[in-house]
């Protein structure tokens, strides 16, 4: 199967799964008794966080592979996974405050996990800014790889520091009723399929750009 067919299939799957997940969230999952309907943000908020971290971890791995093997494909993969991961972290950072405004009465409370996500978001914003600044630079890919590696090493330390520093805590253990659990499970698969589809699409766009660039250099 060609890459293009793969992407089509994935997008089809993502559409069906996300449709199913949304239907379950709005019509099947029960309303949480204390927070009300807003709790249903959880079904995309949490899987997006997990998908975001997984993608940024992949970006870290591809960055190491790039420095090690010196193969430009790994650079594109690192760029791709970082970018899509960044989109998912953005989803977390936007939905978190909306939920928080409803549950805590304030748009932003310096809740540890949300704060860590914000710092991560800032780090990768700088990463993309660096990519933008250095796009005509021979060492650009190498520079970006080093930054991605440092940023990911920093994640556990940031988490620890913010945890000690902050005071408000996420519920450590969430008890979910069976319909909630089923909905969460479907939403999880849906979000991950969407992440895979976005990543592959972004990768293909990047490949097309590379081909175009090569053509431009070949024709004087």
């Amino acid at each position, binding site marked *: 199967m060609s890459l293009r067919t793969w992407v089509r299939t994935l997008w089809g799957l993502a559409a069906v799964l996300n449709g199913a997940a949304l239907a379950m969230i709005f019509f099947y999952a029960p309303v949480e008794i204390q927070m009300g309907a807003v709790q249903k943000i959880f079904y995309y908020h949490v899987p997006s966080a997990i998908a975001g971290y997984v993608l940024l971890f992949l970006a870290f791995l591809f960055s190491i592979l790039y420095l090690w093997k010196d193969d430009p494909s790994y650079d594109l993969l690192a760029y791709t996974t970082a970018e899509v991961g960044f989109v998912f972290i953005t989803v977390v950072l936007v939905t978190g405050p909306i939920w928080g405004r409803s549950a805590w009465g304030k748009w932003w409370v310096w809740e540890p996990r949300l704060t860590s996500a914000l710092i991560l978001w800032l780090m990768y914003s*700088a990463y993309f*800014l660096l990519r933008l*600044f250095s796009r005509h*630079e021979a060492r650009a890919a190498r520079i970006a790889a080093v930054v991605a590696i440092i940023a990911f*090493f*920093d994640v556990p*330390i*940031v988490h*620890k520091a913010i945890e000690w*520093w902050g005071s408000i805590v996420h519920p450590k253990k969430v008890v979910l009723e069976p319909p909630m659990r089923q909905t969460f499970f479907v939403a999880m698969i849906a979000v991950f399929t969407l992440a895979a589809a976005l990543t592959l699409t972004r990768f293909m766009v990047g490949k097309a750009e590379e081909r175009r660039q090569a053509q431009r250099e070949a024709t004087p």
Partner: protein
Amino acid sequence: MNYVRVVALIFAKDFREELRRKENVISSLLFAFLSLVLFAFALDPTQVDLNRTGSGLLWLIILFAGSLFMGASFRKEMETGTLQALLLSPTDRSAIFLGKFLVNLVFLLFLEGLLLVFAYLLLDVQTGPVLVPLAVAWIAVTVGYAALGTLFSALIANVRGGQVIYPILLFPVLIPLVIAAATLTQDALAGRPVYTSQWLRLVALFDTLFVTASVFLFEYAVEE
């Protein structure tokens, strides 16, 4: 030549160069002093007890003035071609990094010392009785800061407009260090234990991790 001697030689070269081209040193120090004066106006020192709440602000000054200094540390080398020459020579690349790192470390510590003196003179921050634990905490924090500052400075040395993104790139990564520095300074000034603090352990972990990572990654950062 053994490794330590190479590092020492590169350190001596960079150190002399910074002293000879003094504009970088002077502008960073003056910037730090100026920020301290601005704090006095922004904060009303008669009402804010800087012994308690000022520690984080002092570290903000160190962060800004330090990045002003370190951000330029490879730029001169790139312009004059010194770095290329060094890279072509059979010296171990990590030695080039360590030499530069030590220069930055020495400068930052000097800046911090000076800042404490002026914080005492201008804002009556009493550091005398707790100088030893305070020094331990600040040196520990500065090691990690200088390591990443040096590495990132090498990264952006050739990038057009690199000076602009340097602090944007560096500061988010340093956030754990900033929290630790502010807390440790506050603890030290209040006479609370520093050596047994969990924050000092976190800083030690940060230092070990990022000094190692920087030494290792520097090679990739400068390779053509």
